[in-house]
Structure formats: structure tokens, C-alpha cells
């Protein structure tokens, strides 16, 4: 077994305690990673082939074709990025600038608003290491890490002993789940620590908690047991170091972030609370941060090819751009929008020239004019990535491949334009 630790890129927890065994240039055994991580690290069962117009092609002609598609497009779209290194993302942003493209990532219909608020310092946050060492009250809100980020509870949030949490989870930590259904995580938190609320009632429940924290009677239209809300408010008030882990369930249910801001503000008047977004893809947060550093926006952006200025807003999101058919070519990197977006939105992709860069075959690739296989990030290529809590993590290459990294492919496309 290698005595070196590697990083798992199976999710944005980026577990950095992974040891591997290799055989014939492949990973034969992966230690400590969860099943989801092992599936990612062992690579695809069906690798992507290099093709142009459905025919096998060499990498040079595929890159030339991709460059000519982007060059000839008036309003290309560049989308994906969550499964790319920060280095590749930066090249992609440069490519979007050069081609006057729309650029977006999956955060645009997921954790984007939360990450933006954190980067704008509107929400107090902390690192996962802080959570491991200090957190005594952990709230999973609309989040089910037991399925989405399997090692979240064991590595950071509930079970580990930390510097200020030496007595074990039973005594030293309180984990609470607020969700519309009894998730696996809720089961682990037990009935008394599970708050089941109706669909889309999160904002109202937050207001009720704010009342509870202000020693007012917490009322809800769905008649949630007031005593239990007060109990929860009390636990939160007494926290020495609290953290809310915000899941997609919560993000989807909030029409605006105001109720969350209000709750966090109140919590930090009477207690000490932090918030961490449960980012899915391993470097989605990296994309948000890299684009933010360059443009001041985390996603949903269009560059003006001539002036280099940017337009930003909902209408520049991947979903709106496709709905309005305002793009005329698309480059997809490490993502499969034909499977992940609603078909009514994604179908338009099949009507325009499409380029896919990915290690594995996927639905979008089958409809693409050009497909270029790339090295698997964190396994066949190194780089840096940003963990869900904003900490930068170094990825090391573990095994060799003939495929170029997405960074190299994007650089060559950019040069060819």
C-alpha cells in the first residue's frame, strides 16, 4: 500500500486521507473512501472516445473542430466546471472571455446563492476543521449527508473527537435534522432531534425560530408544536459553536435568502452560529470563487467579446439561455446537462453544435459534434480544488493516462481560436 495520502474527488468533502493500491497502472484498492468515492476514483466503466461528427478522431482534429465551432458561434455557452480543477476553470473563464461566451455551472440551480452570500460576507461561515474541533450543535437543514456526502458525519460534523470535543458525540455534540422527510441522517439524529416540516415551509420555520430565540411565541401556519420549537431555539441559544449545514432541500425551498439572513443574524446576537453549504460536485465552490475573483459574480454570466465587459443575472443562467435559445453552440466540461436538466430545457442543446469534454461517456456526449476524453481529476491529473467550506485542497495525480487534462485541452482550444 502506498504510504501517501490522496484526495477523493467523489464530492466536495474532498476527503484527504485516502490510500490506494495500484496494479497494472490501475487502482486496485482504495482505502478509507466511501463507496461513492471509490466508484469515482476507480474510473468509468465506459470511457469517452475522441470523436468528430460521430467518427473516431485524433485529438488534434477534435481540438481544431472544437475551436472552429466556438469561433464561428456568436453566443457560445460554456457550462460544467464542477468536476474540473481550479486551473482548468480559470482557462475556461479566459476562453469565455475570448469568445464572448455565456459561462455558468451547476451552482446556478443549486448552492450558488449561498456561496455568493458567503463570499460577500453576508453569512458567517467556518471551516470543517473548526466543526470537527469545536462544534457542539450541528444542524442539517434540508440536507442528508448520509447519502450525498457519506463521510460528513464521521469525518467532521458528528462523530469525531476534536480538540474541544473530547468526550464523544453522545455527550459533546447535538446533531439536529430539519427536513421534509425522515432521511437517513434524521434516523441517526433520532426522533427527538428530528424536525419534520411541510414542503416549502422552511422560511416560515425560520421565522418561528427567530421568534423562539426572541422569547416570543413561535407560530406557524402548519401548527408545529410550539414547545418543540422553543426547545430547539433553546439548544441553539446555548450552543458554544453552532453550525448549520445547508442542503439543497433548503436552497430549493427559499425564494429569497432574507429569512436565512434574519435567522443567522438573530442566532449571532444570542449565540455563535456558522453556516456551511453542502456543495455537491468536488470543485463547484472553486468555480464560484474563481469567477467571483475575476468578475464579481459567482455564475450566470456573459462576456462581451469585443469590450470584455460582463452581463450578469438570471437571464444569463444556463437554464434561461437554453430556454430562450439565445446560444448557438455549447461546450460542456465534466457535466451531463441532457440528463441533469429538465428535458424541455436541455433539448435545445441537441439542435446546436455541441462539444463535450469528460473522462466518461454520458448522454450529452452521445449528442455531441465533438467529444474529447480528458484525464480523471484527482486520479489521472492533479491540480487544486476548493472544498465546500472554502479551504483549498491540493490534488495529486495517482496514475498515468494518455488523455490530456481538461486544463490542457481547454488551453489548446483557446490557443487555436
Amino acid at each position, binding site marked *: 500500500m502506498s504510504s501517501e*495520502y490522496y484526495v477523493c474527488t467523489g464530492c466536495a468533502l474532498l476527503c484527504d*486521507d*485516502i*490510500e490506494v493500491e495500484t496494479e497494472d497502472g490501475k487502482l486496485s*484498492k*482504495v*482505502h*478509507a*473512501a*466511501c*463507496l*461513492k*468515492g*471509490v*466508484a469515482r476514483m476507480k474510473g468509468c466503466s465506459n470511457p469517452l472516445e475522441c470523436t468528430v461528427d460521430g467518427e473516431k478522431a485524433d485529438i488534434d482534429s477534435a481540438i481544431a473542430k472544437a475551436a472552429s465551432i466556438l469561433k464561428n458561434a456568436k453566443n457560445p455557452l460554456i457550462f460544467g466546471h464542477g468536476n474540473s480543477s481550479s486551473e482548468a476553470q480559470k482557462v475556461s473563464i479566459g476562453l469565455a472571455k475570448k469568445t464572448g461566451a455565456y459561462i455558468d455551472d451547476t451552482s446556478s440551480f443549486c448552492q450558488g446563492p449561498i456561496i455568493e452570500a458567503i463570499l460577500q460576507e453576508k453569512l458567517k461561515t467556518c471551516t470543517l476543521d473548526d466543526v*470537527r474541533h469545536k462544534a457542539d450543535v450541528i444542524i442539517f437543514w434540508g440536507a442528508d449527508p*448520509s*447519502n450525498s456526502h*457519506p*463521510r460528513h*458525519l*464521521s*469525518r*467532521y460534523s458528528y*462523530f*469525531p*473527537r*476534536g480538540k474541544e470535543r473530547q468526550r*464523544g*458525540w453522545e455527550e459533546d455534540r447535538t446533531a439536529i435534522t430539519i427536513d421534509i422527510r425522515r432521511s*437517513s*441522517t434524521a*434516523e*441517526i439524529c433520532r426522533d427527538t432531534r428530528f424536525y419534520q416540516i411541510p414542503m416549502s415551509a422552511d422560511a416560515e420555520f425560520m421565522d418561528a425560530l427567530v421568534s423562539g430565540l426572541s422569547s416570543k411565541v413561535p407560530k406557524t401556519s402548519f401548527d408545529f408544536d410550539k414547545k418543540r420549537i422553543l426547545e430547539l431555539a433553546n439548544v441553539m441559544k446555548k450552543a458554544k459553536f453552532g453550525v448549520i449545514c445547508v442542503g439543497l432541500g433548503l436552497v430549493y425551498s427559499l425564494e429569497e435568502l432574507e429569512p436565512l439572513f434574519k435567522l443567522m443574524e438573530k442566532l449571532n446576537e444570542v449565540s455563535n452560529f456558522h453556516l456551511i453549504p453542502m456543495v455537491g460536485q468536488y470543485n463547484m465552490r472553486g468555480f464560484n470563487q474563481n469567477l467571483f475573483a475575476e468578475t464579481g459574480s459567482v455564475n450566470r454570466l456573459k462576456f462581451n467579446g469585443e469590450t470584455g465587459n460582463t452581463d450578469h443575472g438570471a437571464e444569463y443562467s444556463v437554464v434561461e439561455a437554453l430556454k430562450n435559445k439565445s446560444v448557438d453552440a455549447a461546450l460542456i466540461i465534466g457535466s451531463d446537462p441532457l440528463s441533469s436538466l429538465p428535458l424541455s430545457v436541455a433539448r435545445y442543446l441537441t439542435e446546436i453544435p455541441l462539444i463535450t469534454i469528460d473522462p466518461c461517456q454520458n448522454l450529452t456526449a452521445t449528442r455531441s459534434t465533438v467529444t474529447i476524453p480528458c484525464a480523471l481529476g484527482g486520479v489521472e491529473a492533479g491540480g487544486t480544488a476548493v472544498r465546500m467550506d472554502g479551504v483549498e485542497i491540493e490534488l495529486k495525480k495517482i496514475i498515468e493516462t494518455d488523455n490530456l487534462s481538461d486544463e490542457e485541452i481547454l488551453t489548446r482550444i483557446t490557443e487555436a481560436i
Partner: protein
Amino acid sequence: MANVMEIYQLLPKTNCKECGKATCMAFAVDLPGRKVKVDDCPPLMNEAKYKANYEKLLEMFGSVKDVTETGLIVHNEKCIGCGNCVVACPVNVANDPLGAGSGKAPTSDKVIFKVEDGVVRARNVQECRRFGDNRILCVACIDTCPTKAIEFV
């Protein structure tokens, strides 16, 4: 798991002492902890009239596939490798406080649970708190498993 009375009912109840225990009740108490084996009771094993009971007890304590000597079973097909049991097990914490006990990959050979290829493997099970002389009814690994993959039989 069957309780002691249920086990006792399946024994010869003659207190013959051939197993080395003073009473059948004492034998029944020791069976779940695997301090004795079903086959340690000669009449049960050899006399035809106990055949049905013998087979029942074997089913309970004898021949479960993949049962470790302490009765711990991990249902591999259910395990997702989340590591909750690895980090929650008090033996892992005691033997590897800075590795498993702190949420990281185990760094000691003395841990009971370790995740390999995304699935937990049990080893050193004789160290489990449920067994041995100072045993306690520890449920840390059972209660923290999101998929109910751990069972004691």
C-alpha cells in the same frame, strides 16, 4: 437475538454438568457471548431426542455465514462506507485516537472497523466491548449506521 430463557428451553435442562458448567442455565447464559459452543453440550449433540433443538441452536449460534467469533456480522451489500462505525466505536477511539477517533482513516492495526474499497471490514473483533469479561452492551456501531448494515447474532 434469542434471550437466555429461550435458549435454556432448547437445552436438555438436566444439569448433567458434562459441558463443564454447573447448570444448563449457566450454559445458556454463556452461549450468546460465545464463551461456549453449541457442540460443548454432549447430550444435545449425541442424543436423538434433542436433534431438533440442537439444529435450532446451531442455526442461532453455529453456522451463520461470515459470523466472526463474536457474532458480529457486517452486511456488505448494505454498507456504503460512510465510516460512522469506524469513528464511533469506542475501541477504535481508544486504540487510534488521532486516526479513526478523530474522523480520519485508521492509522493503527488494532482498530475493529476499517473501510476498504468502500465497504467496512471487521477485524480484531475479540476487542469488542460486547465480549470478554468486562462486557457492556455497546451499540455504538449499530446505532450510528445509516443503512443498518451491522448486526450482532
